């Protein structure tokens, strides 16, 4: 019992509008045109380094940047910042094709294994791998955060320059404070006592680096792999940056700790030579031990 029905003739007239449909205009120049072939990995980097395919200056971006290369995936690098990411943190990936999907970093491993030739490696669930992964993600990461965000000269010379998002100095001062307090918060989370001691942090990192060096031994890749895998990429994310950044001489505890272990320096070099031939090389500074 429909009480009111639009006469079919009227409906046909109504449906004929708009009378003329014109194809869409191209989007403004600022809108990126996704490539139909190559997916895009959004990382912290400069436009120049992105064009050269150089490593990102952020360890977690560099990890995925490197792992995707291990998987033989051809991708583009897009300079970006955390605001752009679906997970509020870089990196993330936009797949190729007309119906592009956006993947935060916790989906990248699975996606890379499905879409590339993932290296054969020991399972990440292995307790040994888990233990060493947590060394990297806690002790090494904490020392990295401390060295870059809480050491005043390093922060001023490196982080505040790398993570600068605007040319306006007033805004940068404000954002610098935000970054430093975020780093402090991160460090305090693992330290319920509320004390951040530089000596403890560096000592912990030093023993973590020693343990990593020991487990690598004379092998080419970690855990006896025939080719580099996700763990190698994770560690490279830190080692490459620790070895190549222009640290302040008084605040260079991390690079000193790594340089003591030739096999780790060699690990960084093997990946860099193969994957990033244009990347900066470790600085040739020589520290006189004990001075």
């Amino acid at each position, binding site marked *: 019992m429909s009480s009111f029905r639009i006469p079919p003739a009227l409906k046909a007239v*109504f449906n004929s*509008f*708009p*009378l*003329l*449909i*014109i*194809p*869409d*205009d*191209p*989007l*403004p*120049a*600022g*809108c*990126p045109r*996704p490539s139909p072939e190559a997916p*895009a990995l*959004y990382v912290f980097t400069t436009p120049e380094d992105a064009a050269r395919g150089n490593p990102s200056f952020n360890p977690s971006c560099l990890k995925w940047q490197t792992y995707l290369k291990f998987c033989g995936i051809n991708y583009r690098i*897009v300079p*970006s*910042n*955390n*605001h*752009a990411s*679906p997970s509020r943190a870089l990196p993330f990936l*936009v797949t190729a094709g007309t119906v*592009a999907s*956006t993947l935060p970093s916790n989906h990248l491993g699975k996606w890379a294994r499905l879409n590339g030739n993932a290296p054969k490696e020991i399972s990440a669930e292995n307790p040994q791998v888990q233990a060493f992964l947590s060394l990297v993600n806690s002790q090494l990461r904490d020392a990295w955060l401390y060295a870059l965000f809480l050491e005043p000269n390093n922060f001023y010379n490196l982080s505040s320059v790398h993570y600068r*998002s*605007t*040319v*306006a100095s007033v*805004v940068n001062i404000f*954002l610098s404070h935000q970054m430093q307090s975020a780093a402090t918060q991160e460090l305090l989370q693992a330290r319920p006592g509320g004390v951040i001691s530089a000596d403890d942090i560096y000592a912990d990192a030093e023993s973590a680096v020693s343990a990593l060096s020991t487990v690598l031994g004379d092998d080419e890749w970690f855990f006896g792999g025939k080719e580099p895998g996700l763990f190698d990429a994770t560690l490279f994310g830190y080692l490459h940056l620790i070895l190549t950044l222009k640290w302040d001489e008084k605040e260079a505890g991390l690079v000193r700790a790594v340089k003591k272990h030739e096999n780790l320096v060699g690990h960084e070099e093997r990946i860099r030579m193969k994957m990033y031939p244009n990347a900066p090389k470790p600085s040739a500074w020589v520290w006189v031990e004990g001075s």
Partner: protein
Amino acid sequence: MASSMSPEDDVFDRLKRNVDPKVVQAREDAVRGRVRAQYDRAQRTLAKLIDENSTLPVSISEIRIEGARHTRKGFLEKVVAPALSSRREGSYTLASALEELHGRTNVLHQFGIFHPSISIYLDNTAFSTPTKTDLRALLTVSEMSRFMLKTGTDLGSAEGTGYINGTYRNVFGGAESLNASASVGTRTRSAFDANFQSPIAANPDIIAEAGAYASSRSHKHLASYEEALKGGRLGVKWRSGGDVHEAGFAGVWRQVTGLSEDASVSVRADAGDSVKNALNYTFIRDRRDNPLVPRSGYLYKHSSELAGWAGLGGDVAFARTEIEAQGAAMIPGTSMSVTAGLRGGLLYPLSLGLGDTKTGPKPSRINDRFQLGGPTDVRGFREHGLGGKDGEDSVGGDVYLAGGASILFPLPRLSADKPLRIQAFVNGGRLVGLQGIGGTEAGSGVNVGVANAVRMMTRQLPSIAVGVGVMYAHPVARFELNFCLPIVARQGEGARKGLQFGVGMNYL
């Protein structure tokens, strides 16, 4: 003593007795009538006196202002002193002296710090001579309350907000005002604004302004992002011959953040921080009889912004201009009116910085581009529905042109002064983005891009819609309910067939 008491007792007794209210009423009326008659007589006498003596030569040697407790003497002096005979050339007649004093009180009213009830009282001074009367003027003012606090709610076509607004008038006794407001809403998540205004040289037509604001707004109705703004502005506003000019400098830190899960790459590309430092200028000439539903007159408005140019700094550099014109007229011999309007805008990218740090023009960002479409500009299309889309996101454009014409007539059997009208309209618009900006070829790219955009706009039909509807003009906003039919549309544009509801102040 006792004898003298008795008549008084009588008076009280008489008063205590119940009196017929009608009699009291009649008595009061009679008293009021007598007072009014006396006042009228005084006014008539005064008018006659002034009339008879309008050519009487007078001088004003003293002006006294009473009741201005919080207003600076120097400020008041600047306003009224020009009326003193010692400060002017030429002499007064009584009529011109009164006219001058009225003029001065009008200026006082314009500052908005006095109640509109300033009274003028004139008196002879001892300096009067038989040939010239010297006057002393007494202006009695009453100051408005200095603090005002207002809370309320606003409802728009797609937005509801609650606000609190505080005003501190006459802060330093020179008609300066401090205004602070805070609001929360559906689209405007939160907004704070503090604004200080002061007339320059005690002239109510020139106002200097300084302000600061912070806001967080959702733009998800047009594209998948939110924007947090923190900024400040400095400016001057002046009126001359009925036109309004505004010029100033503004700096704002914008943060494009809070992206939706399915945000397009176009939005992701512009996410993050950017600072815009810009000089701006706006000109408004509004000669319409009524800005909401004009029936005669015209409006011309243009606003320009120069961002990041030369040493201004910031992260974006462009010149952005918008022009709006509207005209209205009655059809002779009928109660129908016709309104026609045209709007256009151009965002022209510029080089950023100076000397060695100079970089070539860059493509515009989503938060700087124009948006077009919707019930208050191009009806028959969704809000911000015109122009390019990346997925669900309206990315806006750098060049636009929109025009429309409406004919309005009163509803049958309703008089023309009722705020209801039937309207029929045709409107259209075109919004395009510049191409090839920021490429390797520097400099010339922008001009080529603009030329190509203009060619695109002129060679192809704009998106067009027609419709009929009902319009209701409420004192604060104009409401419209239209039945729209898009005639020409682009594929991805939000053409809206059927009923469309609009609320707004500023229609095309």
